[in-house]
């Protein structure tokens, strides 16, 4: 998976994807996104405020010509709602990309796997490029691909938890098992988490709270940019095997 990342025929130059929720204001959103060096941002679909039309529009701050807009179906707890939001997103936007979420539970925001599979299948048939937010189970990931997913987006930890990559070996197995890109989504709390995800073989990492919730989101966005690049380079370079005992780095020969 060296070189550029491609999902469903769409090419991505950045392996760090950034969410646009939870920022203080649109200006901070814009500055953080710039600092992250990303070319893809996630958004949600919500009712327009028709009472107060003075409110600013997110897309005035994020140029759709510069960034790929990846709409999500966040907040959907059943297949019907997820389909509805995905279709509205496609009509409002300019592409067939959808980050599909079918949430199973409010407290954990873990995906409803059965619903996710069903919705993936329907939307893929409708021509969507489906990027499903899934749990970190390799078999579920495989089933999603069978259902037509263009990539899988396993969680590192619950959304917004900042717990890092809780199940690193599963992420590694998912990467080795599938032929489609793997985008680690959710759980990244700080730069090292993003690096670990990339070292495990993730093709990209999606971060929202880890950046937006930092004391200095713009600085954290820059940190994440370097972290993702470092992790990717390390993955491509191939790390040394872990060993229990030492091996000297300096030669014995020539010692006095």
């Amino acid at each position, binding site marked *: 998976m060296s070189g550029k990342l491609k999902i469903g025929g769409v090419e991505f130059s950045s392996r760090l994807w950034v*969410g*646009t*929720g*939870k*920022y203080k204001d*649109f200006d901070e*959103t814009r500055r953080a996104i710039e600092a992250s060096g990303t070319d893809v941002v*996630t*958004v*949600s*679909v*919500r*009712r*327009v405020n*028709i*009472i107060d*039309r003075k409110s600013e*529009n*997110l*897309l005035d701050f994020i140029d759709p010509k510069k960034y790929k*807009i990846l*709409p*999500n179906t*966040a907040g959907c707890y059943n297949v019907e709602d997820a389909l*509805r939001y995905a*279709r*509205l*997103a496609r*009509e*409002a*936007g300019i592409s067939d990309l959808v980050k599909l979420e079918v949430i199973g539970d409010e407290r954990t925001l873990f995906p409803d796997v059965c619903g996710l599979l069903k919705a993936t299948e329907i939307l893929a048939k409708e021509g969507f490029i489906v990027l499903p937010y899934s749990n970190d189970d390799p078999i579920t990931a495989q089933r999603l691909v069978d259902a037509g997913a263009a990539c899988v987006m396993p969680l590192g930890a619950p*959304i917004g938890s900042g717990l890092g990559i809780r199940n690193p070996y599963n992420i590694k197995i998912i990467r080795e098992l599938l032929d489609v890109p793997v985008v680690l989504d*959710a759980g990244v709390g700080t730069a090292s988490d993003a690096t670990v995800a990339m070292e495990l073989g993730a093709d990209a990492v*999606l971060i*929202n*709270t880890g950046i937006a919730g930092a004391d200095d989101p713009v600085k954290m966005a820059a940190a994440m940019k370097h972290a993702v690049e470092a992790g990717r380079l390390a993955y491509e370079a191939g790390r040394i095997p872990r060993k229990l005992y030492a091996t000297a780095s300096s030669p014995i020969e020539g010692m006095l």
Partner: protein
Amino acid sequence: MHDKAVFLRGYGFFNFFMRLKVNGDQLETMAETVEGLIGEFKLEPKGVAVEVNMAIVKKADYGSFRLKEGDEVEIVSFVGGG
């Protein structure tokens, strides 16, 4: 727009009004089409999606899609999200 509408309503037989439910709120409009309705809200077709009675109206049809009394309309756009 609305001042004019209220004035005309006074004549009774001149009833240009239509009651709609838009984004969950009951309101009255003089707009006859989806294009007219989103224009009343100073919205442009770009960046929004519109549903009438749970069915998406394609952007190309905004001008020709006629609204009728009691229609339930949803107008959505993109907001910040993960």
